[in-house]
Structures are given as structure tokens and as C-alpha cells.
């Protein structure tokens, strides 16, 4: 600790260079924190997904719907505790610029599958009793000022009604808290039976089925039973866990894991040379100062450690700022609206700290070794 001032002073010998190097490290770790934060955040969200929740989707891709007739057949398969159709409605409120994430479903079964949804039982009763009923996420209701009992017009560019109109008038019978996707997804549900009855087409189909198994250990056998049942039909199914389905869907967009690791790796690798160059220059410029320290009695080992500690201070201090900024970005409401309740996972902080230490040691070791090997007489003779 008594050497701290000496090391700290050495670090700030060339302020502009130190600040620029520090900024490079800050931005590199900000990028690392954001990429890895998103990556790890998704992974953690996936791991947190219910292990006994499964999805039945069309084998040929989700553009092809599944027959609504599968509903009763899936319900009858042993091990299935609850199953609900999930039909993409994709409406909007008043204007197409106000999209509403609306889905047609069987509400009681759906809320049985999504245990994390918080809803009063009377709202489920009301939904069953009201053909044109709708259950709305509390945040969505608050956004548009909707209250229970309101009749809201939901427009759609897909599902015209048998009556010819494309505006569906739905009665809000209840609200619910939380969300199927971690708290940020503002869903809107209408009755599948009403949709099937009123839609001009596609009323015997659904986008997918979501189900809960009685025992997670039965998941594989239930999945196999469902897929076997509809094998060689016009609409073959693919039944998989929520986690597996999400991973597959994410990979269809991009392999986030690969992209995050590649970009972060390239940035850190570049940073390694930058930091090593800064440290090497710094030590070269201080050759005579280091020789003086050795003259005064600082051993080779002490000088080596001091240079390494200097590199550690530079890297850790800047990395901490970068990771802190990345953490702060995750709390931004705009980002939360897109990614939900993703935060900076602790593992990313630990990884960042470990990389900063590694960076400091690798970039600091060559100049530290040079300082250790410094010959006092030769160094003092060069002026």
C-alpha cells in the first residue's frame, strides 16, 4: 500500500496518453459488457424458462398453421396437464402505428400453462362468460387508458370478419400482471372460440399450441407422443421445450453467442496490443527513473511487480468504468422495452474482471520484465 502513490504517479506521468488508453479500454469493456450482457442475459432467461412448458409448432415452419382440431387430441395425450392454442392476431389500436401484441387463446388453459402470469380468478370466469372478452396486460391497459368494462376497437390487417369488417370490438374483462416473457411483453388475449367463430378465414387453425406437462421428466415422452400422433399428416408437428424453441428462434435471427464472442474477442485482442504498447512506451520513457529506484534499493522483483500493478490499475480501473456503463445501459427504459428485464449478469462482471486482469498481466509482463532486467549502470549512462 505504501507504494501506491509511487505506482499511481507513474501511471499518470503522461496524462493524455493514459487517458486515451483508458478510454479505449473503457469503450472496449462497454462493448464487451453490452454484447456479453445481452448474450448471457438471453441464456439466463432461457435457463429460467419453465422446464415443464412445451410448444407444439408446425414442423415445416411457423408460416404454416396447425389445425385447431389438434387441440382436443393433444389434451387427451397422457402427461399433458394443460394445453392452449396460441393464434397470432397482430392487431392495432386506432392506428397501425399502435400495434397490439394480440393472440387468440383459451384463457384458463393458457394461464394454467403460464404460472408466472398473475390474474384474479374472477377475470378468468368473466373471460369464459364473455364471448368478445379480452384480457390485457396491466401495462398495456395503462398505456391506452383502458379499464375493465371498456369496449375497445382492435384493428387488423389480416383477420377480416365474416361480417366483412376488419375492426374487432372486444370487451376488456380483466387485466393481469407479469408476462409470459419475463415481464416486458405487453400481451393482449382474446377468446379462441370467438376468433374461430368470427374470422372470415383461418378459423380452423392456430399458430401453435402451448402446453404444460404433469411431470418435467415426462417431457420427452409427451413430445414424442404428440409428434408421432401427427406424423405423416398434412400438418406435422415439432414439440419441444420452451428453452429449445427460443434458442432455435434466436439462432434463426443470428447466432448471438457467436457474434458476441467474436466481436468481444477481436476487440480485446486489439486492446492487448494497444495496452502493451502504452506500457512498453511508458517503461521505456522511465528507464532512468526505474534505474534510480533500483539504485535506491528497489529489487528487480519489486520493480517488476510495480510495473505489473501499474498495468493492473490501468486495466481494472478502466474496465470497471466500462462494465459500470454497460450495466447502466441495461437499466435504460428504451432498452428494457425491447429486451425486457435483462440486466448485467454477475457472470459477465466476473468474466470482465478476469479478462481485465489477464489483459493487464499479458500486456504488462513484457515491459515489467524489461524493467526487471534493467541494468542500472547502463540505464544511468544513457541520458
Amino acid at each position: 500500500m505504501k507504494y501506491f502513490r509511487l505506482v499511481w504517479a507513474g501511471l499518470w506521468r503522461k496524462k493524455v496518453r493514459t487517458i486515451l488508453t483508458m478510454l479505449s479500454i473503457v469503450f472496449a469493456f462497454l462493448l464487451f459488457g453490452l454484447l456479453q450482457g445481452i448474450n448471457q442475459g438471453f441464456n439466463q432467461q432461457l435457463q429460467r424458462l419453465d422446464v415443464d412448458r412445451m410448444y407444439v409448432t408446425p414442423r415445416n415452419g411457423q408460416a404454416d398453421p396447425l389445425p385447431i382440431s389438434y387441440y382436443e387430441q393433444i389434451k387427451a395425450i397422457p402427461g399433458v396437464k394443460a394445453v392452449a392454442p396460441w393464434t397470432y392476431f397482430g392487431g392495432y389500436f386506432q392506428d397501425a402505428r399502435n400495434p397490439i401484441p394480440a393472440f387468440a387463446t383459451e384463457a384458463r388453459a393458457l394461464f394454467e400453462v403460464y404460472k408466472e402470469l398473475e390474474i384474479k380468478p374472477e377475470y378468468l370466469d368473466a373471460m369464459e362468460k364473455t364471448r368478445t372478452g379480452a384480457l390485457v396486460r396491466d401495462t398495456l391497459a395503462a398505456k391506452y387508458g383502458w379499464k375493465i368494462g371498456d369496449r375497445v376497437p382492435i384493428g387488423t390487417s389480416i383477420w377480416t370478419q365474416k361480417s366483412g369488417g376488419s375492426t374487432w370490438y372486444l370487451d376488456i374483462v380483466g387485466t393481469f400482471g407479469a408476462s409470459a416473457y419475463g415481464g416486458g411483453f405487453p400481451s393482449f388475449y382474446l377468446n379462441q372460440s370467438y376468433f374461430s367463430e368470427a374470422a372470415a378465414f383461418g378459423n380452423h387453425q392456430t399458430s401453435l399450441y402451448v402446453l404444460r406437462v404433469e411431470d418435467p421428466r415426462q417431457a420427452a415422452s409427451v413430445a414424442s407422443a404428440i409428434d408421432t400422433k401427427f406424423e405423416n399428416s398434412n400438418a406435422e408437428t415439432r414439440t419441444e421445450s420452451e428453452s429449445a424453441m427460443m434458442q432455435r428462434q434466436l439462432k434463426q435471427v443470428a447466432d448471438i453467442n457467436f457474434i458476441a464472442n467474436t466481436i468481444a474477442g477481436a476487440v480485446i485482442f486489439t486492446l492487448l496490443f494497444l495496452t502493451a504498447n502504452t506500457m512498453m512506451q511508458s517503461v521505456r520513457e522511465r528507464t532512468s527513473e526505474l534505474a534510480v529506484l533500483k539504485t535506491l534499493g528497489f529489487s528487480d522483483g519489486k520493480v517488476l511487480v510495480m510495473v505489473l500493478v501499474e498495468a493492473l490499475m490501468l486495466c481494472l480501473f478502466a474496465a470497471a468504468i466500462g462494465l459500470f456503463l454497460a450495466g447502466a445501459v441495461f437499466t435504460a427504459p428504451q432498452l428494457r422495452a425491447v429486451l425486457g428485464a435483462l440486466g448485467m449478469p454477475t457472470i459477465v462482471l466476473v468474466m470482465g474482471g478476469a479478462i481485465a486482469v489477464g489483459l493487464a498481466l499479458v500486456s504488462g509482463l513484457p515491459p515489467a520484465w524489461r524493467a526487471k532486467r534493467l541494468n542500472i549502470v547502463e540505464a544511468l549512462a544513457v541520458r
Partner: protein
Amino acid sequence: MTALVTLRNITKSYTRGKQKVEVLHGVDLDIESGEFLALMGPSGSGKTTMLNLIAGLDRPSSGEVSVNGERIDRLSRGALADWRARHIGFVFQFYNLLPVLTAESNVEVPLLLTNLSRSQRRQRVKTALELVGLSDRARHKPGELSGGQQQRVAIARAIVADPTLLVCDEPTGDLDRQSAEEIMNLVQALNRRHGKTIVMVTHDPKAASFASRELHLDKGRLAENVARDAA
């Protein structure tokens, strides 16, 4: 008086390219405790090499170097560093202060290698700066001080750990005449009033005149020995 520093049959050679250059040829020297010795001689005569050997910065090619009865030519690099911290105070021609530290922090550097507490270190630094007459410049950085003041800080740094031997390499070489005289008066006072044993390398006969003994080196051999009245 007893010899504090003893050099016996010292040779020192360096390899430059394929050539081996012998700088010192079988030098014998005794430096008494409390003595103020000036080493003089032309450039390349080997005086700085001899100073480096006495101070434990370098090792002889052959021969023995003893300080206070300890054979320092036999010490390992680590042990030699530790020995320097305990026994040697250095004053350089170009002061060699750390530019980012204040005067008091510079003076404190050798004490970081001791077991003294922070308050003890502060007290020692204060005393050393008072001794060189720079208490009012304690918070100044080297760049804010004149050459003479910087050399005073360097002297304070050299004496703060109360070393056995004070080694000065051209201490007035970068100073104007007046500052040089002030520095030499200070160095002489350290020898006469505080009993410090001092070995100084200089080109300057005026600076050498402050010493109690002058030794002249020529082509790696001791050539002339001039003793003065210590009073």
C-alpha cells in the same frame, strides 16, 4: 581511523562488440570512516566505474570490495539491492528526481523500503528537508524547482535513510557556479558536522577542494593522492 571501504586489486572490464575493454587495472584503495574523498580524473579514466563498484551498482571483474567489513562483491543482485537501501545514499549529476512526485514524496522514496510507519517517514522527510533548507518547497514538484533546489532535494533523499556512505556523481556538474558552491557547502557540512563518509566523483577542481582528500585516476590506475587538513 578504520577503513570503511576497502578495494583490493580491483579490475573491471567491459565487452564492447568483440573487444574487451579494461577500465580499472588492479586498483587498491582504503576510504576511512568519516572521510570526504574526491575522485578526479579525465573522462574515461574509470572514476565513475570505481564509484559504481563502491556503491554496489556494479561488480568487479576481479578483486574484492568490502564496505563496513562486508564483501559486497559476493552479494547476489537481490541482496545487493537490499544492501544499497540500507547503506548507500546517492546524489546524481542530473538529480534524477521522479518528476511526478513532490519534493517530500521524492525524499520519502528510500524510506518506503524500511519498516518505518507513515508518521515516522514523514518526520524523517521533514528533518531531511530542513537540513537542506527546503522545508518551504516540500509540496513542489521537481519541475517547479531550480537546478540547485532539485539537487538539494536529491541530497535530502540521499541522507534521509541515514546511510553509511554518501556517494555523489558529479553533484555540481549541471549547476551554475553559485548553486554549485551552495551544494558543495552543504555536502561538506554533512561530512564535517554530521560525520558522513562521502565519496564524490567530479571534474571540477573547485568542487574537489571541499573534500578532505583528492584521488586522481588516470587510465584506470590511481595516479595521485592529495590529502588536506580536515579542519
